[in-house]
């Protein structure tokens, strides 16, 4: 008993657990400060910059990177590409956690979080894009929750209710694609309200199109990136099917992502041309724009293509991580860096250490829940008692 006890204590004090424990502890203190002393006590937000890193990173990046859920389930259940089946559950789980954490982050960011349900149930602002985003996120989070429940029901041994939910798979997938199309694009459209605040290179009438198209390859890259991490750290929870399909999933998604990225670059080019914004490309902001568009979209697209041609998984995995970084950079550029670009530097926004700490806390919470779920429920492997659906 003493040995087992000692072993348990040793297992508890792993570097991962210690780091995560510290982050969660600090996050708990920051949460307490936020909800007892108000937003002003922990953020650098002001009237010029009412949206900071909690919107720019937690919400915009969270929603974009959670797009793997609708992309993977559409590929598998709508287009009938069953070779991607093993990627569906991890992608749905990532998407569900992504959206759940977006809603959690919103509780920190809005002034009166207890009124978050108001736009849905009390006062519907039907002419507002924010209402559409809010409604879609609310509905899609519900859809993702239902889509993930079969894994939980298999874990709990609830066969009958699992059978009922499995029959809803196709309709839930269609619903998920429709809702994602709506709110991924609407998040971009939100910034069309501020033509004088967003730098002309990032501002465009095509912003909703940019956001929607980029969400597709963000989702595919995130599935590859997450699969890379899962193979490295959670490999023992994977079955032979998952191991066997991983290469094909990565190559298929890499091919699709590369093509969509080139399509995205084409639309960006058309956006610059139709607005006649070529002259900005030679300025400092133009250089930064090219870093984003060429450095973090065109080059990873080429790396994806090289990886597909050479059947090189390392190329594909690096390209996926690079693309995920590029999406984060794009969303931060639009919401923070190129936003209010005309203000003097002393009025520009930079997140406080406590804002960044809260974002790190929320991401860490997601990782911990993902690990908790995948080590218990049939996510990275199929349950032996249930047929694949």
């Amino acid at each position, binding site marked *: 008993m003493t040995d087992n006890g000692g072993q348990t204590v040793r297992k508890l004090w792993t570097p991962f657990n210690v780091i995560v424990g510290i982050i969660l502890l600090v996050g708990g203190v920051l949460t307490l400060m936020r909800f007892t002393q108000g937003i002003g006590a922990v953020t650098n937000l002001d009237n010029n910059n009412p949206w900071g890193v909690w919107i720019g990173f937690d919400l915009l990046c969270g929603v974009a990177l959670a797009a793997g859920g609708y992309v993977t389930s559409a590929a598998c259940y709508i287009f009938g590409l069953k070779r991607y089946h093993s990627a569906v559950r991890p992608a749905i789980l990532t998407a569900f956690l992504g959206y759940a954490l977006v809603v959690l982050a919103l509780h920190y960011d809005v002034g009166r979080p207890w009124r978050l349900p108001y736009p849905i149930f009390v006062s519907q602002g039907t002419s507002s894009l924010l209402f559409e985003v809010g409604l879609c996120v609310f509905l899609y989070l519900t859809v993702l929750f239902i889509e993930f429940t079969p894994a939980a029901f298999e874990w709990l041994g609830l066969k009958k209710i699992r059978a009922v939910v499995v029959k809803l798979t196709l309709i839930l997938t269609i619903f998920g694609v429709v809702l994602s199309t709506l709110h991924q694009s609407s998040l971009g459209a939100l910034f069309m309200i501020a033509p004088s605040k967003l730098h002309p290179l990032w501002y465009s009438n095509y912003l909703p199109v940019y956001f929607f198209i980029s969400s597709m390859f963000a989702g595919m890259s995130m599935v590859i990136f997450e699969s890379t991490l899962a193979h490295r750290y959670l490999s023992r929870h994977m079955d032979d099917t998952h191991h066997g399909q991983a290469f094909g999933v990565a190559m298929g998604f890499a091919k699709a992502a590369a093509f969509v990225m080139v399509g995205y670059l084409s639309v960006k080019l058309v956006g610059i041309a139709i607005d006649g914004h070529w002259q900005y490309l030679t300025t400092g902001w133009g250089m930064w724009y090219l870093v984003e568009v060429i450095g973090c979209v065109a080059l990873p697209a080429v790396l994806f*293509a090289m990886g597909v*041609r050479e059947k090189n998984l390392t190329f594909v995995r690096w390209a996926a991580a690079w693309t995920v970084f590029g999406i984060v950079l794009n969303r931060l550029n639009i919401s923070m860096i190129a936003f209010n670009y005309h203000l003097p530097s002393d009025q520009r926004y930079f997140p406080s250490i406590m804002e960044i700490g809260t974002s790190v806390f929320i991401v860490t919470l997601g990782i911990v829940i993902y690990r908790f779920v995948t080590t218990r429920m049939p996510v990275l492997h199929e349950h032996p008692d249930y047929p694949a659906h």
Partner: protein
Amino acid sequence: MNTLFFTLHDFMVHTKGVTYLIMGGILVALPLFWWFLTERDDEN
């Protein structure tokens, strides 16, 4: 690229003209890129 435009019509003609040319380039480039992506699929 700092072309001087006197009317909105001038501006639209110019930007739309450039856009059409770019679209032509894209119509050629996208199939070529697809061919580059899938060229070796047939070998397997």
